[in-house]
């Protein structure tokens, strides 16, 4: 009976939801960013989740080294790329991991403003197409999932504590 393995699964979910919340925060912070290091406006990012460890619970007992594929971040500021610091640790088999952080490939929003320093020859400035309502709903979802898994960690801690009572 591997009680501590359960906590690894819930911990992987907490980490993944935190990455999701950070990506949402980056999107909201850069909603009006017209210039980036790569040139062009900021592109909206979103995370892709996947189950870690292939078959999940039924797979081998050894923890899978769920290394995350390289993030496809383009043009994010150095402060925003703190997202990459959370990657690289193996996710518990059966838990969740961030498969990739993808940039939105849709066309940017064009606004007519010839006075703007980043305006193109036609007078249009390219803004990122970020809808704050979408981002807020995503953040709410991430918060709820985080709370759910934090409750699971509490329950698991409770079980481990109660199993220690056998010794008394």
């Amino acid at each position, binding site marked *: *009976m*591997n*009680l501590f*393995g*359960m906590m690894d*699964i*819930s911990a*992987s*979910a907490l980490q*993944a*939801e935190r990455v*999701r919340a950070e990506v949402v925060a980056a999107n909201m912070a850069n909603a009006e960013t017209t210039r980036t290091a790569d040139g062009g406006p900021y592109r909206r990012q979103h995370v*892709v*989740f*996947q*189950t870690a460890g292939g078959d*999940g*619970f*039924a797979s081998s007992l050894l923890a899978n080294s769920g290394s995350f594929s390289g993030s496809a971040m383009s043009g994010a500021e150095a402060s925003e790329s703190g997202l990459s610091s959370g990657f690289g640790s193996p996710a518990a088999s*059966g*838990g*969740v991991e961030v498969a990739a952080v993808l940039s939105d490939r849709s066309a940017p929003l064009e606004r007519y403003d010839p006075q703007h320093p980043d305006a193109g020859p036609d007078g249009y400035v390219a803004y990122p197409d970020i809808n704050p309502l979408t981002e807020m709903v995503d953040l709410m*979802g*991430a918060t*709820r*999932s985080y709370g*759910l*898994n934090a*409750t*699971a960690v509490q*329950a*698991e801690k*409770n*079980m481990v504590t*109660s*199993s220690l*009572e*056998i010794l*008394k």
Partner: protein
Amino acid sequence: MQVTTATSDALQKYLDLTSDQMKLTAENMANVDTPGYRTQGIDFAHEFSQALGTSASTETTVKPSDVGGLTARPDGNNVSMDREGMQLAKTQLEFRAGVSLLRSQFTRVMDAIHADK
């Protein structure tokens, strides 16, 4: 002298099974946002009766299967937060009940050891 009783062997298997159930619940909760994920579950009563049938030392691996009767969201995920929350609370209580019963078994043996005082 035998310190373990038949009941404590059965309780050992019960605790193993409830912790497997707990692990599955944790896995379902962790994957609540994963596209295409199907809720995994085990038939507790069936697995327990099977485990009781085998001898004490054999390690039986539990095979989780898809849980039916859940509606899938547009991204293919069919994990229900409410069901998993209920399962979490239930399994936790089952585990603690098992631990209490196991403790009472050992307390009885200890009482028998101290009986001459």
